[in-house]
């Protein structure tokens, strides 16, 4: 059996290629055959199932190798499997961009995460999206989304990572805007269109930064492959006497800009909470396996190249985002909004861990987070589906009897995200707090950053435990409040408005299905309900026991010593706190103990707090929020970041556009009009001339002047042919200029 787990380039790279191509081929088939297929989903779901199996198998190989102590880095270009994209020997140095597959511990584990979560999302969508008008297209887009993420994980150079990164941006735009194509649902139509645009444009800011960063590295190192970049980075730092050159700090900050956009860090986090305008499976996909994970993954890949100054910025941004998003999460009432803010907060944890030098903790938290957040979102989808597209938690309550499977899965994952002992999130969050303690111990290196992180992160973790349990208690415990909808609803509108879609508007997923005739929340039987089946697969990963096994395996797979080739791993040791780089040191033991107690303490405090406020003393929350006054309102309005962005960025842009439009209308058009008037005058003159000297010769003159008039009038038609004329004229003028100069 062990022979099966040995690395074999002749098979493994083909398997990896298959993993990459199956979703793509499925996408093409789906697009062309969507109306011809008996059901729109089996090709893609089946394909994704195969992908999930292969990726898990490949991850098992990587785990087997690293546990045996081998270095596990395989580039397909070593065995000649590569794709020369552009290639030129003529220039010095030779410009060649060659893409291949990089199969390393980080990639292997990420691959398995993407495969499994994506398969579950596909499975879930079969139930959730049933009856949707654009069902087949939805699956196709989902599949291409997965393809982009898989490609991003597998690519061995940063340019291809960027290409897949951009494909992912496009697919997130299409998927968030999925409901934007149905004008018969005015709310969703407006919301989805707006949110998809917002997501696309906001992440674009980060993408521009990343692109600049990539080209700064290219400019200096003339290589784009990760292994090449790491080596070149080490050489550059050594040549500079062990210090990072200043330009690497700048480039690193630009690369981090990409992460800020994609992984929703402050201040570009504003797109993620609105991304829930898309269907819930898409949210699960974006929040768990793809999109936001890509930013953290990029940090993991580029970590050796980030200078200590950049890491300080990274740590500060991450810690601040974690705390900041957690406070907003505590005030949200929309089920999906709570989860969305918790994602922003958890991403802050991951980014902060990377910034503090504990890159493996960040990556490991990304893995566990992918499973439990995927499960949480799918469970939220199941709740929303069961409640007929109500999203406001205040209109739910007492659902644990009506949606038992969903309840159990969601509870497991909530305990995981809250960091409850023995659940999966406990292990990974513990590692991040460990990073905090270890870097405080190494204060020469990390200074005030470590202190800030060590304060912000536990507080954020406590808040996480609090608001996640709050979600569970409000949604699943107590009495069902959905039937009071009518008068509650109007009251709520009067006070502060329902969050999420208007419950009186039927959700886009519903199309008069008979089982929905009653307005009681319900859950279909487990056996034939693909939604709950998907939930269970994901929830199992967070259960104690399984979580421990995963922790042991993944911990062996991605440690600071296996994540990069050995030379690089020794080199980055300078940026990593001693307590983490050397797990046997005294500092490691001290930090470990402290982190353990701290994480136990914050998780239990948060959970007990939520229990006290939302189960024992239900009257208290309202009083507290009233007492907090403006503080509460600020949180609830998301610190007015959206308003600030509108005032500072969007409005000036719109104003600029208005000014340009005015210039265009008044000045440019005025000029055109002037030319027209002059022409008209010329026409009058020539007509007069024509009348005065009517004979053959003059007729010819008149024709010529008419021709000129017509030629000038061509300038003003504003049509295709006019553009063609301009293009030709421009070409002629350019040629003339080239000849004459």
């Amino acid at each position, binding site marked *: 059996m062990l022979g099966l787990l040995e690395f074999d380039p002749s098979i493994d790279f083909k398997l990896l290629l298959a993993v990459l191509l199956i979703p793509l081929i499925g996408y093409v088939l789906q697009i062309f055959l969507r109306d011809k297929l008996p059901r729109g989903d089996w090709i893609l779901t089946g394909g994704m199932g195969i992908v999930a199996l292969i990726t898990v198998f490949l991850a098992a190989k990587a785990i087997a190798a690293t546990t045996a102590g081998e270095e596990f880095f395989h580039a397909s270009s070593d065995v000649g499997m590569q794709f020369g994209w552009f290639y030129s020997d003529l220039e010095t140095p030779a410009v060649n961009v060659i893409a291949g597959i990089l199969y390393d511990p980080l990639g292997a584990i990420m691959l398995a995460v993407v495969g499994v979560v994506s398969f579950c999302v596909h499975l879930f969508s079969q139930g959730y999206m049933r009856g949707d*008008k654009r069902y087949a297209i939805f699956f196709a887009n989902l599949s291409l989304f997965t393809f982009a993420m898989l490609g991003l994980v597998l690519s061995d150079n940063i340019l291809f990572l960027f290409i897949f990164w951009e494909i992912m941006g496009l697919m997130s735009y299409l998927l968030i805007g999925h409901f934007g194509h149905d004008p018969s649902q005015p709310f969703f139509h407006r919301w989805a269109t707006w949110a998809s645009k917002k997501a696309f444009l906001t992440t674009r800011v980060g993408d521009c930064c990343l692109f600049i960063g990539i080209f700064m590295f290219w400019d200096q190192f003339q290589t784009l492959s990760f292994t090449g970049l790491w080596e070149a980075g080490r050489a550059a730092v050594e040549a500079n006497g062990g210090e990072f050159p200043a330009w690497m700090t700048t480039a690193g900050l630009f690369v981090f800009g990409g992460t800020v956009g994609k992984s929703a860090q402050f201040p570009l986090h504003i797109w993620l909470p609105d991304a829930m305008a898309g269907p819930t499976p898409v949210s699960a996909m974006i929040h768990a396996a793809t999109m936001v994970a890509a930013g953290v993954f990029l940090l993991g890949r580029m970590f050796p190249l980030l200078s200590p100054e950049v890491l300080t910025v990274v740590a500060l941004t991450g810690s601040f985002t974690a705390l900041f998003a957690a406070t907003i999460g505590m005030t949200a009432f929309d089920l999906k909004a709570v989860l969305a803010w918790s994602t922003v907060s958890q991403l802050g944890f991951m980014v902060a861990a990377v910034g503090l030098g504990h890159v493996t903790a960040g990556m490991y938290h990304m893995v566990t987070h992918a499973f439990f957040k995927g499960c949480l979102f799918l469970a939220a989808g199941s709740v929303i589906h069961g409640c007929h597209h109500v999203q406001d938690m205040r209109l739910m309550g007492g659902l644990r009897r009506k949606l038992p499977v969903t309840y159990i899965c969601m509870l497991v994952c909530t305990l995981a995200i809250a960091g409850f002992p023995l659940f999966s999130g406990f292990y990974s969050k513990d590692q991040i707090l460990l990073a905090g303690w270890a870097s405080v111990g190494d204060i020469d290196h990390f200074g005030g950053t470590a202190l800030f992180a060590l304060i912000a992160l536990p507080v954020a973790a406590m808040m996480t435990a609090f608001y996640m349990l709050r979600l569970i208690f409000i949604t699943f415990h107590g009495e069902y409040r959905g039937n009071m909808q009518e008068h509650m609803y109007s009251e709520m509108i009067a006070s502060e408005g329902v969050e999420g879609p208007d419950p009186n508007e039927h959700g886009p997923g519903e199309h008069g299905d008979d089982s929905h005739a009653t307005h009681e929340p319900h859950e279909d039987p487990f056996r034939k309900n693909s939604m709950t089946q998907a939930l269970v697969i994901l929830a199992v990963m967070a259960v104690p026991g399984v979580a421990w096994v995963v922790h042991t395996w993944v911990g062996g797979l991605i440690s600071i010593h296996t994540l990069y080739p050995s030379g690089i791993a020794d080199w980055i040791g300078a940026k990593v706190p001693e307590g983490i780089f050397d797990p046997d040191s005294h500092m490691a033991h001290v930090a470990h103990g402290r982190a353990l107690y701290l994480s136990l303490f914050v998780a239990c405090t948060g959970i007990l707090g939520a229990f006290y406020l939302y189960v024992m003393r239900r009257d208290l929350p309202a009083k507290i929020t009233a007492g907090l006054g403006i503080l509460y309102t600020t949180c609830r309005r998301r610190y007015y970041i959206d308003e600030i962005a509108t005032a500072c960025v969007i409005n000036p842009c719109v104003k600029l556009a208005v000014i340009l439009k005015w210039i265009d209308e008044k000045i440019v058009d005025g000029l055109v009009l002037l030319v027209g008037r002059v022409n008209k005058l010329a026409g009058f003159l020539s007509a007069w001339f024509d009348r005065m000297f009517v004979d053959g010769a003059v007729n010819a003159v008149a024709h010529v002047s008419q*021709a000129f008039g017509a*030629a000038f009038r061509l300038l003003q038609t504003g049509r295709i042919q006019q553009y063609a004329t301009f293009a030709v004229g421009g070409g002629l003028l350019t040629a003339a200029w080239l000849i004459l100069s």
Partner: protein
Amino acid sequence: MDQKALQRAFYGALAVLTLFAFGAGLVKAGGEGAAFALFAVMTLGGGLVCVWERSIVRSAFALMSTFSGVAGVFVLLESDFLAMAQILIYVGGILALILFAVMLTPPDMEERRLPRVLAALVAVGAGVSWIGWQVAQTAEWLVTSRPLDGTAAEVAGTFGANADRIGVAFLAPDQYVVAFELAAVLLTVALVAAVYIARRKRTDIEPQTGEGVS
């Protein structure tokens, strides 16, 4: 001038120019010159008629002369395969397609816009010939003085026939096979796309059951 006189003048001038070109070619370069003049006049005269004619059907047929003339030019340039491809694809395929389009759209006898056509002719003609003149004056073209590659039989003996060699070049792995396959894919995609774009939408026929049709 009325329409008829204009038409007569145009075709008269064209005929005179043709004769002149033919004579000039014959005098300057013998049989090859005459053939070249003939094909050049077919090419350019066809184009000119195409621009000139009011009826689009006549323009389309004038285009046939252009395409055939280009095929002739290819023959003079020792590209027999290309000449056949030109006739098959352009005259037999694209022209037929254009005629289809002409027939499927309503007859649209536009009023002659002589000033417009003349202005464009004069402007573009002046521009192109000026640039051409300048280029001819200044550019140094690296030109062989290689004579004709020989008779057809000799060519076939030395290099293999054109079609043969092109066929091999298409499929040789170190030459054009990737481009060739891509071209095949492109053609397929274009055909599917053309069918997709041009098909009559189902909604137009049965407006009641428009659901699900994009």
